[in-house]
């Protein structure tokens, strides 16, 4: 099934024409409504008239997460505040969140994109989707929820956590589709297996997103739950989940290209890579009203293919992600930068201790352990004092990162320093 055949199966020429005309309009609108971009364009000596189609895309400036942060909270919005129907936010690297906004039309387009991707995964109005992404400032929960409703399926808005309740609802309400992070899906599958309830569920598909996963995990999940598992990709700055998703052939994720214009660049030279080569994925939004972005650098490494898919769709497809061009980690679906850990630790008493983040996957759930060297100023002759210190660090990190952190005190000088700079992260998960 294809939700919007006109848009998802158009010829390359039709698509580039549509993208070009949308881009021209969008650049005009942004130039006149967003001071940040107007100034940037003026500095670069370009005017809206210089952009006549997607072949002029590389004349436009890039946008980074730092630009959004610098314009916190609403500085990049292109519409009056009264037109903003909703805001979302993602955690920032220095405590300030990255805020994104949507008009009613933006939300309608978002819902359309999610509906396309759900349909790509075989979801119909007959289905009930258990949404286990967080509802709130995070785009995951509400994004998939609105797409589910728009499609006409039934949304079961569970949000995250409380595994036992999730399983009971899944069985009692007869959920047929699970939307969650792949690691949480594994966790649910394991819990079902342990309690002998695997045959009590009606799941047929799972829509997995918000964190990278491997083909091995997909196979494992599909076998264990007897379902088909699909990828959904998105990022709040560009929209949220629904920017791209994969079909039953699993030959890459179809980008909703009529709304998001993709490029792949070399993260060092910022020039486009050769066709099919791996580089950093960059998106220009084509239809977004509230927060239109020029060439937003996702920092996700992938390659693009423009061949028609066996499923009939002609949209550009991105390959499984090959990693990140920055040091961001995704832990239990939450974006974590080592610099957040660093500034949180600095806040404890103004002096940064030596630390090491160890990310692992234990029983299908990600864990973050932070090793902190017990320098003399932290040391005490009483276990109770050291326990207090451990709990205090854990609490500070947890509130800064939004995920549970296990803190382990280690001896001074035991965290490896290489060439004067300590290694800050060990990721034991093999996700790319």
């Amino acid at each position, binding site marked *: 099934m294809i939700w919007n055949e006109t848009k998802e199966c158009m010829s390359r020429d039709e698509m580039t024409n549509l993208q070009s005309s949308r881009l021209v309009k969008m650049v005009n609108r942004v130039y006149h409504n967003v001071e940040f971009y107007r100034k940037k364009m003026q500095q670069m000596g370009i005017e809206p008239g210089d952009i006549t189609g997607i072949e002029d895309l590389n004349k436009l400036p890039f946008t980074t997460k730092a630009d959004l942060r610098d314009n916190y909270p609403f500085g990049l919005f292109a519409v009056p505040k009264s037109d903003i129907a909703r805001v979302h936010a993602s955690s920032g690297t220095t405590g300030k969140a990255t805020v994104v906004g949507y008009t009613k039309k933006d939300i309608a387009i978002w819902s359309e994109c999610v509906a396309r991707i759900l349909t790509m995964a075989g979801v119909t109005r007959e289905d009930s989707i258990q949404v286990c992404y967080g509802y709130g400032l995070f785009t995951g929960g509400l994004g998939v929820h609105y797409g589910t409703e728009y499609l006409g399926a039934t949304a079961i808005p569970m949000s995250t956590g409380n595994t036992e309740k999730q399983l009971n609802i899944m069985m009692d309400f007869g959920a047929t589709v699970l939307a969650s992070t792949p690691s949480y899906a594994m966790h649910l599958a394991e819990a079902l297996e342990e309690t002998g309830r695997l045959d009590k569920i009606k799941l047929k598909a799972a829509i997995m997103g918000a964190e990278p996963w491997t083909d091995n995990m997909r196979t494992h999940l599909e076998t264990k739950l007897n379902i088909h598992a699909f990828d959904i990709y998105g990022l709040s700055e560009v929209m949220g989940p629904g920017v791209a998703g994969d079909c039953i052939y699993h030959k890459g994720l179809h980008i909703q290209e009529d709304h998001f214009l993709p490029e792949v660049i070399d993260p060092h030279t910022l020039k486009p890579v050769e066709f099919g080569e791996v580089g950093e994925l960059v998106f220009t939004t084509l239809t977004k009203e509230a927060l239109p972005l020029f060439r937003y650098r996702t920092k996700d490494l992938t390659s693009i293919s423009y061949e028609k898919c066996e499923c009939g769709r002609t949209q550009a497809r991105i390959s499984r992600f090959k990693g990140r061009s920055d040091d961001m980690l995704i832990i239990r679906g939450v974006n974590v930068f080592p610099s957040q850990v660093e500034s949180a630790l600095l806040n404890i008493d103004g002096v940064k201790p030596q630390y090491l983040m160890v990310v692992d996957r234990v029983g299908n759930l990600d864990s973050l352990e932070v090793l902190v060297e*017990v*320098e*003399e100023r*932290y*040391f*005490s*002759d*009483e*276990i*109770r004092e*050291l*326990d207090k210190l451990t709990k205090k660090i854990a609490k500070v990190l947890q509130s800064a990162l939004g995920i549970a952190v296990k803190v*382990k*005190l*280690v*001896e*001074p*000088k*035991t965290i490896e320093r290489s060439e004067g700079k300590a290694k800050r992260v060990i990721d034991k998960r093999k996700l790319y």
Partner: protein
Amino acid sequence: MFVKQLCVFLENRAGRLNSILDILRDNEINIIAVSLADTSEYGILRMMVSDAQKGKAVLKEAGFSAMVNDVICIKVSHKTGSLSKVLDILLAENISVEYMYAFANGKYASAVMKFSQPEKVAELIEKDGIEVWSSEEITSMSF
């Protein structure tokens, strides 16, 4: 009244305790009493040694977190109930024990103790004639 105690932080890893003992041996620091308080992740090694300050310096040199602090070392006779007799006096004043360890030397048994209110304990020791070891006596102990 107070005696110096040497404390060292150590992780629960094979060979850590031994490397501390090696350092102390190489620097001719004698251990008179020792206790290891352990949790699942780490431990605190607490010791009475012949030279606590030097012990701290050499351990720090080797990269360990070490500190010297004041504790009280009570003399207890080898007689049933003598430690509880001392603790009864302190408990009556609402003083609690943070930690303790014991060692025996000749005529006496000895209890190294850290209390919740060390100053108050010092007063009680004076008043009630509780016998304690002095710093000099401890550091010169050898068996």
